[in-house]
């Protein structure tokens, strides 16, 4: 398989996923789904959250 085909499968294929309805229950409250900071508790309570410059997840394979 040509690796560049993954662009179509993942990037373009992903763009059509999950755009149907908002989360947060069957009747989302006003604003939920339109303002990404409006969700409750969307931050990570983990005390190890964050690194100064950011980093990435290792590729396992």
């Amino acid at each position, binding site marked *: 398989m040509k690796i*560049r085909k*993954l662009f179509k499968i993942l990037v373009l294929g992903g763009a059509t*996923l*999950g755009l149907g*309805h908002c*989360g947060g229950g069957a009747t989302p409250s006003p604003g939920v789904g339109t303002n*990404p900071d409006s969700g409750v508790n969307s931050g990570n309570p983990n005390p190890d*959250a964050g690194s100064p410059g950011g980093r990435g*997840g290792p590729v396992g394979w």
Partner: protein
Amino acid sequence: VSELARAAWTSRFAIETEATTRFAELARRLHASGAPADLADLALRASRDELRHAAHCQRFASLHGAAALEPKTHLVEYAPGSLSPSQRLLYEVVAQCCVAETQSTATLVTLLSAAKGTELKAVLQELARDEVQHGRLGWAYLAWIRDRQDLRFLGALLQPMIAGSAGPDMFNPVSPEADSQELLVHGVLPLSTRQQLYVETLETVILPGFAEFEIDTTAARAWLQSRCQQAAHPNA
């Protein structure tokens, strides 16, 4: 070769067990942020997938002589703590799905085409199928969030994000042992193939993907070019 294969499957076990926790956390945060339920569900499913993957990795590590493995459950966020909660969530999804899982998909389909044993082939097929969904989750989230959030901040952060995904060994000088074609039989890419695939996936899938979303890839491309030059001329 067996020692390298054992180390690879052991490392994969640790990464897969951590990904179980990471995707569960992403599912919670996606749900809480009001993202489409389909995406939160996809993250939850990914968490379960990773648990299954970890079991496969444990089995193959044991076959290569690994002792009992401890799961890695302690989660450290990838995103800089200075970002807003929504930016941090976006960073996490992009780092995990658009970068790491997209790279993993490329590796798995490459391994699959070279695999010989029936059991290994079946496992790689199962994992590749799952990883496609995990990668798509990130690109789907970007497609949804682009009209709701300014994505430009990611441009300056792509370089450390991508460097982190490479890990410390990706651009190591290639030794004959690390480049043995026999590794493929054990489900591990020879190092030079791994390096080429990593670069190709960045150049033809991940960075063009970010460009689709108008995220500036200049710094990430410059970093990649410099790493490739260093790998080609280690003594320069």
